[in-house]
């Protein structure tokens, strides 16, 4: 895999990393992809045609709830904001977006 491609992935994944590490990752990818590529044998044999692409787990379903407020306003605000890196007036503070 080319360095450019790793750079693009790092950018997509929002991970700042050195070129040195990218080269190392390119090397690791080579051996990892060589290993996982064995699943392509299965597709070559045509064995996958009959396998449906539906969900693997028949027991999984979406769990919904009514869109109603079940807690007092601000009940958890302090607890949650206590964990945030930067806050102002009960809101999360972020860098300028526009």
């Amino acid at each position: 895999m080319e360095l450019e491609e790793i750079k693009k992935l790092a950018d997509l994944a929002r991970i700042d990393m050195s070129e040195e590490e990218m080269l190392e990752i390119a090397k690791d990818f080579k051996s990892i992809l060589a290993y996982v590529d064995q699943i392509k044998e299965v597709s070559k044999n045509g064995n996958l045609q009959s396998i449906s692409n539906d969900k693997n787990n028949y027991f999984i379903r979406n769990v919904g709830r009514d869109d109603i407020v079940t807690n007092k306003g601000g009940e958890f605000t302090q607890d949650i904001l206590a964990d945030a890196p930067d806050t102002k007036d009960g809101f999360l503070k972020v860098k300028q977006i526009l």
Partner: protein
Amino acid sequence: MDINLDNLTIQKAHDHLESGDFKVSDLVNEYLKVIKEKNPKINAFLEIFDDINKQVKIAERMFENGEATILTGIPFAIKDNILIKGHIASASSKILANHRAVYDSFVIEKLKKHGVIFLGRTNMDEFAMGSSTETSGFGVTRNPFDLERVPGGSSGGSAAAVASNMALVSIGTETCGSIRQPSSFCGLVGIKPTYGAVSRSGIIAMGSSLDQVGAMAKHLEDVEIVFKAINGYDSKDSTSISEELRKGVVKSPLKKKIGVPKEFLTAGGIDERVLKNFNENCEKLKKAGYELVDVSLPSIKYSLAVYYIIMPAEVSSNLARFDGIRYGASDKEADNLFEVYSKTRGKNFGKEARRRILLGTYILSHGYYDAYYNTAVKVRKMIKDELLKMYENVDAFITPTVPFLPFKLGERLNDPVSMYLCDIFSAPANLADLCSISIPSGKTEEGLPFGLQITAPFLREDMLFSISKDFENNI
């Protein structure tokens, strides 16, 4: 009275607490003594909680009021990716180093009702990504049987804590082998319940179609007690199996037939000593009245490859939430919002986490998605179908838990594929939603533990326990 931690079980501890031979505080202090002595070297615990006295008081009051259950006052070690309200849960990552949980996970909520004692949080591979606890952002954990060797991973801290008498039992999590493999490396019993059996609400996610929570202990009966306490439906986890479906599982009696996937055993470059021990284990099961049947599972050899596609794909999505905005670390030198994300993630994720996020991003990217992810999902289904068919004829199938013995620190860290091969026998259970257990099966001459892995059908943990008991009675 003197408390002998070596042979203590939950039942024995409970009987002594009930009869007043010792109090919860005495029991906890015994463990704290061992922690003080051994933890600086082994590094199983990242933190000993400062509210233990409060927990002890609650447990002692339960005994006084006749409200105690078998788990009341039992000292637990909790993996660092399990949320306990008010305590730090970091998944052993620098990005969550100061992250304090604002609610209890489902398992913790259940255990709190029993009045168990949470001694502290245990070290793990960062975000549970690893098989040796060496990728932790907070130092390695050492194997109590040989301090130069790894305890396995990712629940290595939980395993080492119990194996060295720093806790009676522990809670771990598994995406692919992270309970069973360290249990094997530390001479413990460890269970990976059926996918959906134990709720993951409040567990820091890694691979959501694979993650499960389980228990580790020295004794089979203890694992069974803890499993029963944490097992159950939870509306907060959409993969949690409904009570209705649980009741619908027909608990057919044992056929006393066990499958041995012979071709699969040599797929990962198995250590000769492990293979020899496995063959001896087969003989023991025969003596216990089981018929061993060769089973052919043509697709099972692809399990690990399938896992190393599906898991990184899920990792790259799950770890997208750590962005330096809502919780955890945030880089202060960033000039703009994009840099807040990229610098926070670049500096605070460890090497293995970065590698897997990038791998997942690649696998899910346009042009590769079909060749990797979609193919892997289909092969996963093939593996599952083959296993389900196999279960028509056998109760369970067995393999060694790990193809190798506990290895030296650093031995596999720089060669990802050789590290990944630790999980080769673990993968089928996680991919096919099965339940699986690792039980100790002897030691090498130098004292390194072997493990036997038994894997049973969907929601048939009862079979794992019966077969394991029959095996243990024949050692």
